[in-house]
């Protein structure tokens, strides 16, 4: 049980590579905290700093208020599961589980008892006398977890524990880790580059990029209100579509239409998630199963035309996944500056366009999530809509979230 506090953590390797920059995080007692980020963003380095395998070049790690700087990893009573599992190949499963206890000088009898207990929790009883080389990937993973829980550590540190497993086993072990965490209630730091793992497992999470924390919060907060363009683009699959919004008074003009945008008088970058795009007219159903977004007023009715962007698009590609369909569409150009009913004019009507679209000559592409029962076919032109309150606005220069951030 422990609260882990990181203050101003920085790490510069001897060859000048900066792996971690000024990280401030508080990992609360008993929570499962996920560090999420792309490869090379410094997740493992941060974990190694927490456990003491690396010394930070600046900042302090403290556990329950006690500074851990300079404390040997073995003295921190944390347990770590490595991506490679790091099971000792010359020892049986039983010896592997007992190793931390043996080092700690736990008497043989209690050692046996605790190994048996851990083996029971992880269903390893039948494997206790096997050699690691004879185990499957999932079994090795469980042995590594077993070695971690056997000593009642103050925290578990897991470095991409599932990335070496095949997809099915990964889902299974993910559930197992969630179950284990609920059962033991031990503070856990979980490193991954897989957003599904992060969103499903995390009590709270932090998104890292280039060694810097981009955002920390609950998965709902981070997904629902990404603090910047990086987080917005990193979370979500298929990812958010970004487009340029040209400033026109209080509004911005998008390839999709016109919307009220926060933040100064300059252009903005606008992000749209696939699940926020729907076929026009399916409003009530779509908004019912959408994620609730904190901090956004529910005052505007979804059918309020001023809060709805309706546009026409040509379907280029359909991805049918059984439970849902993703449509990759190309937005048809429209006279977005015209207000009211006229804005959805088709190109086929033959009238010359008054001005080129705000996106210039390149057509805007977009991904929309449709219901799997949708009759839409590739090549069709469909009417789509997005609620304006579901748009994410970012500063095009700094990438920071604008408005309700």
């Amino acid at each position: 049980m422990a609260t882990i506090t990181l203050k101003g953590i920085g790490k510069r390797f001897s060859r000048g590579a900066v792996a971690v920059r000024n990280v401030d995080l508080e990992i609360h007692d008993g929570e499962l905290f996920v560090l999420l980020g792309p490869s090379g963003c410094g997740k493992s380095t941060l974990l190694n700093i927490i456990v003491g395998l690396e010394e930070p070049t600046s900042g302090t790690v403290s556990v329950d208020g006690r500074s851990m700087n300079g404390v040997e990893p073995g003295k921190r009573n944390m347990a770590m599961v490595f991506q490679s599992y790091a099971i000792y190949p010359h020892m049986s499963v039983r010896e592997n589980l007992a190793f931390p206890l043996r080092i700690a000088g736990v008497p043989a009898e209690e050692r046996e008892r605790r190994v048996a207990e851990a083996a029971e929790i992880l269903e390893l009883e039948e494997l206790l006398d096997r050699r690691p080389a004879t185990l499957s990937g999932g079994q090795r993973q469980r042995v590594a977890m077993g070695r971690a829980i056997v000593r009642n550590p103050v925290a578990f540190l897991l470095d991409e524990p599932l990335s070496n497993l095949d997809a099915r086993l990964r889902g299974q072990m993910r559930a197992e880790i969630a179950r284990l965490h609920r059962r033991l209630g031990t503070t856990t730091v979980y490193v991954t580059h897989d957003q599904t793992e992060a969103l499903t497992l995390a009590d709270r999470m932090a998104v890292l990029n280039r060694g810097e924390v981009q955002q920390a919060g609950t998965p709902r907060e981070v997904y629902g209100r990404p603090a910047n363009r990086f987080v917005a683009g990193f979370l979500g699959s298929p990812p958010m579509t970004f487009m340029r919004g040209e400033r026109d008074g209080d509004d911005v003009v998008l390839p999709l239409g016109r919307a009220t945008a926060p933040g100064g008088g300059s252009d903005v970058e606008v992000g749209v998630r696939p699940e926020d795009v729907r076929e026009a007219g399916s409003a009530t159903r779509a908004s019912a199963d959408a994620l609730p977004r904190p901090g956004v007023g529910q005052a505007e009715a979804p059918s309020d035309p001023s809060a709805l962007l309706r546009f026409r698009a040509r379907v280029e590609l359909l991805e049918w996944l059984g439970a849902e369909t993703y449509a990759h569409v190309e937005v048809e150009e429209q006279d977005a500056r015209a207000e009211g009913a006229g804005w959805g004019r088709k190109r086929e009507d033959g009238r010359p366009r008054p001005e080129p679209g705000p996106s210039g000559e390149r057509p805007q592409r977009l991904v929309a999530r449709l219901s799997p029962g949708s009759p839409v076919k590739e090549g069709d032109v469909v009417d789509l809509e997005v609620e304006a309150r579901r748009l994410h606005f970012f500063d095009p220069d700094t990438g920071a979230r604008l408005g309700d951030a």
Partner: protein
Amino acid sequence: MSDRGTALERLFWRATVLVVLVYAGLPLAWIVSLSLKPAADLGDGHLVPRHVTLAHYGAVFANPHFPAALRNSLGIATLATLLAVALGVLAAYAVVRLRFPGRRLFLGGALAVAMFPPVAVIGPLFDLWRRVGLYDTWAGLVLPYLSLTLPLAIWILAAAFRDLPWDLERAARVDGATRLQALRKIILPLAAPGVAAAAVLVFIFAWNDFMFALSLTSTDHARTVPAVLAFFTGASRFQQPTSAIAAASVVVTIPVVVLVLLFQRPIVAGLTAGAVKG
């Protein structure tokens, strides 16, 4: 086509192995043969002795210097091996695991020492040892053996360590082990082939050395077997001690052969460590 190619290849390799075996084995066989022939048959030119006698072996063990020499050889070679492996393990660990300025220079320097011609130091060493009192002592031989074999030991051990997944050591340290404990309980058992290879090579070097043993010792106090062999005499002053030397050589070779057979697999594994990814 390809079948004939592989058949031809196989033939080639078999022939090569045969040539090497004969080349390496014939002298050995000849020595064994000599050691078993009675003195009168020595010059008969037969590989298989017509009469077999164990008299020469009796003579070897009857030689008043031989048991002492055997004891010295065993003791000195073992000491040199233990020290070289212990120091080599620590040095290799540092070279592979720790970052310190001059790491490359250290490895390069070690290699340079390994290439140094030992003959060049014997003269000065003789003078020095006499002055500091190391002449004709075990330490007087252990020290040069250690110095000359340590670089090779470090290289072999470093190669073995480099192949180990270091996550294992990190895991051990998180599990509560100190660096030294992790080295002892995780790294060394896993690097056992490399350690065995290094140990055997050091032992053989020390066991077989003739030059240092001859120059830096004078009595049973520290004289080793190869040096004692040189002073063997025949049954009479007018007889060549050929058979006696042959018998003694066989006796001396046996421990080495046993050692190599015992550690053959680990040695090969250790010598090729790093060459291929296991």
